[in-house]
C-alpha cells in the first residue's frame, strides 16, 4: 500500500483523470472530494463488508428452530404498536 500525507486542500492524482482532495479533517473523520469521469464507479468500501457480515448473521440456515409462526407473531405485535 502506498501511504501519503496530505493537508486540507491538497490532493492526489490517480492516473490522468482522477483527483482526490482532502476537504476537511477532524479527530476521527476525513472528508474527501473525488473528481473522476462519470464511468468511474466510486464506492464506500467499508459498508460492503458490513453488509456481507450482516447478511451472514441474518441467514437462518443454522437456526430453523425459530418457529414458522414467528413472522405472524411479529406482524400482530407491530399492529399493536400503531
Amino acid at each position: 500500500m502506498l501511504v501519503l500525507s496530505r493537508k486540507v486542500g491538497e490532493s492526489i492524482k490517480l492516473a490522468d483523470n482522477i483527483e482526490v482532495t482532502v476537504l476537511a479533517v477532524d479527530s476521527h473523520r476525513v472528508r474527501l472530494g473525488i473528481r473522476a469521469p462519470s464511468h468511474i464507479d466510486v464506492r464506500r468500501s467499508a459498508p460492503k463488508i458490513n453488509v456481507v457480515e450482516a447478511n451472514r448473521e441474518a441467514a437462518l440456515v443454522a437456526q430453523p428452530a425459530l418457529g414458522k409462526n414467528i413472522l405472524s407473531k411479529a406482524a400482530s405485535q407491530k399492529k399493536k404498536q400503531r
Partner: protein
Amino acid sequence: MSKSFPVNITVESLRNKVIDFPDGLPGFPKSRQFLLAQKPEERPFAWMKSVSPPSLVFAVVDAYAWVKDFTLEVDDAILLEMGSLDPMDYAVYFILRIEKQGKHTTLQAKPNAPVLVNVRTRQARQVIVSLGSSLEKAEALCLQI
C-alpha cells in the same frame, strides 16, 4: 443523478414469486434466486427463501412499513442497470436479523442496506445507502416479541 423513493410498492406484489440477484446476495454470491413467501397474516413481513440451497432463508420486512415516512435515494446508474428508472417499479425491503434471547425474540433491520426489486423484471439487488434522517431512527428500530 439519483431518484428518491417515496413510493409504496409492497412485497405483497411479489408474493410467491422468484426474484433474481444477478450478482448474488452479498455474503452469498452463489445464491441468485429467492422465493418470496408470505402468508396474509405475516404482512408486512415475508420469508426470502433461497432456491438453491433451499436451507438458506431470510426474514424480511417492507421498508415502508418498518420505517415511518421512509424515503430512499438511489443512484440512476443502479436503477438503469436494474431495468427501470421509475421508482414506482420497485419494491423495497430490509433483511432482518432474528435473535432469540431467553423468552424474547428480537427482529432488527440493517437500514442502510435495503433490497430493491424491480417488480416487472423481478431483478433484485441489495444497495448500500447513506443514512438519511428517517433511516437513522430505524437503526435503533427493532421489534421484540
